[in-house]
């Protein structure tokens, strides 16, 4: 008897352990998302909240059904009609993709150098990569304003060195957005890359050399293919949040820098159009689900 008691308690405990992450996702992700979907199907109204129907549960089940029948996909249709939205989406994806590529280009050598550094140095180097996180993200982006603005540190330096005779107009511009994204997201590329490169068995490179492969070729034939899981992880960790980035284009970008985060913000706070901004958010999520699924697929392949 004691045995069955214990095993049933055991299974209940196991159920609880599995339930916690699901509960977390349901409460903090799925429920808010459903609310956003609901708002995206509503229409604007001068009310509190500023949309209708508000799905007032106090009116009873019958009334609720009447309200649900008012839902429409007009907001989604609207997104396809105004070029601003799809241009914002496209521009966001483009900026995120180019940034991801630049970050990979800069991050790979750094991660490689760290993984090949002496063992006693690696922890320190890793700390240095993580160190910027100790300062608020917002403050770090503001710091870039101080560096890039016309009378900022960069222009002062270049002017005093005589490299330029007139200050560069980097801020605000799309270039500044690239600088901001590359700087802010670099650690998210370096960390997974470092993790895979550090695990790489160096005897494989010796074996390649032994079979007649010079070091540079060995990098492309052995090191790089074996670090692909890290490359893929790093790229998605950078690309996905960069697409929806708001703070960087808002602070560093010019009026011509189109990014969906900025568009969404303007829709929500300036236009106070909750339903349309909700539709923008839902479509953004749908766009990002594709790379997320690709990412998961790649992870599954790597672990096989």
């Amino acid at each position: 008897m004691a045995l069955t008691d214990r095993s049933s308690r055991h299974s209940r405990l196991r159920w609880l352990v599995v339930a916690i992450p699901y509960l977390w996702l349901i409460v903090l992700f799925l429920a808010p998302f459903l609310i956003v979907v609901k708002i995206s199907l509503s229409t604007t109204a001068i009310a509190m909240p500023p949309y209708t129907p508000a799905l007032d549960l106090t009116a009873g089940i019958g009334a609720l059904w009447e309200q649900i029948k008012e839902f429409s996909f007009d907001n989604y249709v609207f997104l396809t009609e105004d070029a601003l939205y799809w241009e914002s989406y496209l521009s966001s994806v483009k900026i995120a993709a180019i940034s991801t590529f630049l970050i990979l280009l800069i991050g790979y050598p750094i991660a490689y150098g760290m993984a090949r550094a002496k063992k006693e140095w690696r922890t320190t180097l890793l700390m240095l990569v993580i160190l910027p996180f100790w300062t608020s993200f917002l403050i770090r982006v503001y710091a870039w304003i101080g560096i890039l603005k016309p009378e900022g540190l960069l222009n002062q330096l270049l002017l005093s060195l005589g490299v330029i005779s007139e200050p560069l107009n980097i801020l605000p511009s799309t270039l500044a957005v690239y600088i901001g994204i590359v700087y802010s997201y670099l650690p998210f590329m370096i960390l997974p890359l470092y993790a895979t490169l550090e695990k790489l068995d160096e005897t494989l490179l010796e074996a390649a050399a032994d079979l007649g492969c010079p070091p540079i070729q060995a990098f492309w034939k052995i090191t790089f293919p074996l670090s692909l899981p890290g490359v893929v992880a790093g790229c998605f960790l950078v690309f996905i949040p960069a697409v929806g980035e708001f703070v960087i284009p808002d602070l560093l970008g010019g009026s011509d820098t189109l990014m969906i985060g900025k568009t969404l913000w303007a829709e929500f706070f300036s236009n106070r159009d909750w339903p349309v901004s909700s539709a923008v958010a839902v479509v953004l999520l749908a766009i990002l689900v594709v790379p997320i699924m690709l990412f998961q697929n790649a992870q599954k392949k790597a672990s096989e």
Partner: protein
Amino acid sequence: MAGKLLTAGKSLGPIRRAFAPWNDPAAKPFIQFQNVTKTFGDFTAVDDLSLNIYEREFFALLGPSGCGKTTLMRMIAGFEEPTSGHVMLDGQDLVGVPPYRRPTNMMFQSYALFPHMNVWDNIAFGLKQDGMPKPDIATRVDEMLALVKLEKFAKRKPHQLSGGQKQRVALARSLAKKPKVLLLDEPLGALDKKLREETQFELIDLQVKLGMTFVIVTHDQEEAMTVADRIAVMDQGKIVQIATPAEIYEQPNSRYVADFIGDINLLEGHISSTEGGVTTLDCDGTGAKVQVSQDGGAKLGDHAWFAVRPEKVAISLSPPADPSVNAVTGEVWDIAYLGDVSIYHVRLATGATVKATITNTTRLVERPITWDDKVWLTWSRDGGVVLTR
């Protein structure tokens, strides 16, 4: 993976027996180490070492970990450069030649198979690197796959193979380019005992058939004895003895070698006579006089050791009839029954223990000699050797 890699090797046996270029003063060494020293910081891995290895030889570097044997091999492969001295291959100085330009290939202890390539691509890697035409690569890879009997596994990735299969892929990959020298770094360490013994004989057959020079690094003395034409026993960056397996076993030149290879009994004493080609050693404590038909370079009055293998010691309940025979007496302290043999540990009056191995030629029902019996241990004059160091 049972079954021999080759059966033709057997007929080549007599050729192999006659093979001894190291005794021929006219023979040109294939691999030469000339006063090679290698230091890592303040650690000396290889200490002013000179060594000749001949073409078609199966040469073993044997020693405990940290003795410098792996460093020596890595200097042939080019992964380490000597701090001073020269490494020559076929008359050419290898110093400064990067590993990817050396005509040597290595089979790694960890196999070092490329995990993102299948078996076929692993074996083809070196051939592609040489720019060999595609049809030739295909022929050669298929040939290698057949040699190691892995034709059916060509499309498998390394992680889908067993340890023995991985080992075969590694061997095929290192042989594919027909290297002048094949280097084997503890190649069988990861295999279980039975598979290891089988593979040892396959390696010998392969080496004889291909006519290549093999250099093997191992800490397993049985492995070295089985496969090698000659063995170099190393200690602290120096070679203690280079000889054939039989010489190493029967004529060790030092207590270190005698103790490292097989089991040995050592009796300490002084040389009291060297007359008539017979060396006499007065053993400390027991007063026993051991007569040996060989002097090991010892002179009258030298402090020396008498070394005799346990299987060359006979054990008896009665004293020898001929008083001139070498004998010591003691009590049976312990008996280790191993099935095929029994090892008797006999304690002498001095407290020293001498081991005697007796072959169990009949089924053991009752031991004629058992614990606490007073016994005599005897051996012939050429049963052991005198060692001075």
